[in-house]
């Protein structure tokens, strides 16, 4: 949990907006440090977290969260965290064995044209089963609203799933988690090309990014510095609130520069980095 980012987003473990769909995106950069922030924030806020870790192993997130002060293994034991380790589950699908055990969540690898229905079913069944159990439990721990974290969506495009299927998946997750259960959803989408280019090279991830930006209520877009590579300032973050209030939709944008350390990240206004001043 990065304290400066908390003050920028006006969210603390005790009070944060519910029902939000947060999109974390990057262009030629790496925004995964923001995923670690949200993971530790929601675990500290005593929410139940469903994490679809599709690109890295559980140990990676566990090691980073240890530095941020949260123990993922403990959260998993208590039942606060449900972790889908995509890499491990995918091996049984990619290399077919005689005995096929494991969850059906990564079945889309067998035939990506079918879509992400099996992945959504995994999310829906585990989210709704736990919320049903909470109402009838006595003496069990009181958890906060459910949170779904996805890291990341662009790897699904690399594995052959179509853009429409990924957008459907995100829409269904938003409907289930944000609208029905008043929880939050955080998704990471990565992009490679420049924004001004108009060729069809990166059509898939550009379309995915545009579609997701339309659906979400808060975006954090990470980019490199427009002036080039710098060792002390790792890039800039553009935060955009897209709240749909009663007085019409207003989008408020703020730009910050950031630097990632060993135990966190610091955010500052443009040009006020300690390396420069």
């Amino acid at each position: 949990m990065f304290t400066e980012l908390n003050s920028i987003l006006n969210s603390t473990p005790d009070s944060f907006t519910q029902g939000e769909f947060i999109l974390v995106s990057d262009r030629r950069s790496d925004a995964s440090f923001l995923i670690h922030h949200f993971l530790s924030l929601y675990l500290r806020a005593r929410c139940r977290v469903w994490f679809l870790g599709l690109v890295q192993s559980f140990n990676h997130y566990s090691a980073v969260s240890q530095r941020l002060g949260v123990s993922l293994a403990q959260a998993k034991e208590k039942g606060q965290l449900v972790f889908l380790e995509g890499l491990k589950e995918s091996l049984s699908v990619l290399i077919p064995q005689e005995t096929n055990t494991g969850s059906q969540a990564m079945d889309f690898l067998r035939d990506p044209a079918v879509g992400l229905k099996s992945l959504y079913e995994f999310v829906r069944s585990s989210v709704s089963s736990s919320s049903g159990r909470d109402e009838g439990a006595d003496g069990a721990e009181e958890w906060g609203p459910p949170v779904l974290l996805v890291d990341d969506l662009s790897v699904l495009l690399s594995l052959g799933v179509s853009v429409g299927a990924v957008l459907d998946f995100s829409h269904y997750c938003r409907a289930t988690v944000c609208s029905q259960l008043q929880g939050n959803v955080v998704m990471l989408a990565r992009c490679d090309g420049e924004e001004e280019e108009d060729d069809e090279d990166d059509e898939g991830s550009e379309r995915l990014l545009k579609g997701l930006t339309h659906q979400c209520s808060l975006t954090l877009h990470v980019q490199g510095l427009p002036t080039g590579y710098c060792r002390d300032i790792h890039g800039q973050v553009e935060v955009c609130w897209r709240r749909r209030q009663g007085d019409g939709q207003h989008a408020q944008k703020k730009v910050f520069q950031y630097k990632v350390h060993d135990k966190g990240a610091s955010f500052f206004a443009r040009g006020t980095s300690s390396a420069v001043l």
Partner: protein
Amino acid sequence: MAAPMSSAGKPSAERSPFNTTSFQKKTRSRLISIPGTRPSVQNGQLLVSTGVTSLDYLLGGGLAVGTVLLIEEDRYDSYSRMILKYFLAEGVVCRHELFVAAAHDNPDDILQELPAPILDDVAIHKPVEQPRLSCEPQDSLDAMKIAWRYQNLPKVQSALASSSRFGHYYDVSKTMEPEIRQAAKCHRFYLPEHPTQSSPTHSTMLQSYSALLKSLQEVIHREGFEVAAPMSKSRNILRIGLHSLGSVLWGDDLCCHDNPSNSHALTTFLYGLRALLRSSLSVAVVTVPSHLIQDRALMGSITRLCDNAIALESFKGSERETNPLYKDYHGLLYVRQVPHLNCLASKLPDHKDLAFKLKRKQFTIERLHLPPDLSETVSRVSRGELAGAATVTSACGSGTSGNKHLDF
């Protein structure tokens, strides 16, 4: 990173034994030391050497166990193949096991071309000031009269048995001797030897890649490289070298067409490779002919699915070969990606413009810098001195700059 080991009858160790710093708790599982590896100073990950010490430095100390290094080939696949051979030769010297897969050349041919290691500076424990020990007679070595302080030190070993150094140097002009090479265990995968099976294994992944993935998993499981394998065996590292993936010989049309029919075959394979590596004690080096792939977005997704990525651009055959700026080097090297596994921040190299040169005993990677151009001032000064006059040069005289014999 690799999953933690689970041995029956022991409380579950949440932290993998490789996530260690120099401080070790006594109650945790014992630290396994595998020859040829060392823990990283940044996050305690286990690192192996790529065989090229300057490349180790660029990647943050070495290649982390469980990761993939992607090398974008240069135009004629000469230097990327050289780095692959350095990687495999380092595995032989460190007594790791090798797995070589190729579709074009027979893996045996690649293994026969490995460079010979330079063994003179291997495993020297003695201090610097020690010339007298060699002139002691052989029969009285146990009772040294002059150099008696050094009596208890171990003898110099030039054999490979105790190679505890991290990176080694190789002599490119000689090939590795067969007895050294045969001491290491090699697994081979030569694509023409694996006929296409009748049963379709996967819809998006090609048959060649499926067969390779299956063969890799079999080797990892059979030889006990999985992290969850029983701890009784001594552990070793498996070095995987995959040559020219994505080329036409693997059955992939990424390099031929602008819109390939199965554009997700290689990326799905790399996803499966990452899944295999994260759960085993192995390292992989993959070379891809990226100069033939027109789709930059596809190259971007291939790069993101590998952990480390570098690109080589050689000057051979291009107009840069005769450019005097590049005369000291053989090509340019770009670091596309450096991973940050188990930590938040990655250690990117400070300088982005790097050039490499293949010398006989070393593959050097240096920062490319342009020295100041002193040629004009130097020749003007020398002409003025030789002519003995400070007259302004005439129009016809300036054409013969630098050639004092024709100076009128």
